């Protein structure tokens, strides 16, 4: 049974990844291209400023893959494999939840586990550390940023599991509705404390030293020797669109995993439910 569930989960994840990739190709790539164009233009402006100030000019890094490969193939392979991985993990979570999370229909459980995956793996961590397009993110802080991001993912997932456990424990005393509300509130408080404690990227020591008192790593305007703005900061609209599309792509991915897996789980598990000894089919 677990084998069937996991293979179906991985398949659902791959299809969901494909859908998410189609969305990304249409909506995200123009924003990513705009961000890369900004980065190149900014480097050129920086070079001109450095030259005027008599500083050594920095050289750009060479391309390993062309933009066409990255924007059409790489992003697709990346998102589809990510979807497959998330689908497999989803199925593991689903298999463990099955029969341990109260009387939930197989297909309803699929949607709930998918929602948990969306929250735990993406949405909650991204509230603290949102997705950033190219040109946002300093190379020297990649270690710390990666650790902090993974910490947020880990805490989100841990607290979600704990909240489900807490809800189950409270169910007898408070009833379904209030137990769910209490568990949800506990999750919000716990993850809120973690978000307050973890630093934002701008507060990292090396960023403070090089860039001053900023909340994030989003590029600020370049200023010339006279203090006038020589090149604008990162375009706010591009950043907004990129982040909205990033959330949308993950929402597509996880809802597709749930919606594709739900009927398969139903077919796999409902016969067992029909022939339950002494019980008739429960409809709700």
């Amino acid at each position: 049974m677990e084998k069937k569930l996991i293979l179906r989960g991985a398949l659902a994840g791959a299809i969901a990844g494909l859908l998410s990739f189609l969305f990304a190709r249409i909506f995200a790539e123009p924003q990513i291209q705009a961000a890369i164009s900004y980065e190149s233009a900014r480097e050129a402006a920086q070079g001109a400023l450095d030259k005027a100030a008599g500083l050594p000019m920095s050289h750009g890094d060479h391309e390993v893959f062309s933009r066409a490969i990255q924007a059409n193939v790489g992003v697709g392979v990346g998102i589809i494999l990510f979807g497959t991985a998330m689908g497999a993990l989803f199925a593991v979570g689903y298999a463990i939840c099955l029969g341990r999370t109260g009387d939930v229909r197989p297909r309803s459980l699929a949607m709930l586990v998918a929602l948990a995956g969306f929250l735990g793996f993406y949405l909650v961590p991204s509230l603290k550390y949102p997705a950033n397009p190219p040109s946002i993110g300093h190379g020297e802080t990649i270690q710390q940023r990666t650790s902090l991001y993974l910490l947020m993912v880990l805490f989100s997932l841990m607290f979600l599991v704990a909240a489900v456990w807490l809800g189950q424990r409270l169910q007898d005393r408070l009833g379904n509705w209030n137990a769910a509300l209490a568990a949800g509130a506990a999750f919000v408080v716990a993850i809120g404390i973690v978000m307050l404690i973890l630093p934002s990227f701008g507060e990292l020591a090396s960023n403070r030293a090089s860039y001053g008192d900023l909340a994030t790593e989003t590029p600020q305007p370049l200023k010339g020797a006279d203090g006038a703005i020589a090149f604008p900061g990162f375009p706010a609209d591009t950043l907004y669109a990129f982040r909205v599309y990033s959330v949308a792509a993950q929402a597509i991915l996880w809802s597709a995993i749930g919606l594709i897996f739900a009927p398969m789980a139903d077919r796999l598990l409902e016969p067992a439910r029909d022939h339950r000894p002494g019980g008739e089919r429960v409809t709700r």
Partner: protein
Amino acid sequence: MSSYSPPTSAATPVVITVSASARWLLGAALFALVLYYFIGLDQGAVSVFGSDTHVHEFVHDARHFLGFPCH
């Protein structure tokens, strides 16, 4: 079907015992985490292929878009 236990209470129909299906559950989780690592993290903060950047550059756009921190 060794891990397939009949329903005991009015809960969900099938309960998968974690101990009996550990091989598949752990295998799938490991497979997924390795993929997660290569798509999201490798050749950024840590790297299994040293200073090579092919994996990183290939999935570059996906990495940004899926919310992972990138250079």
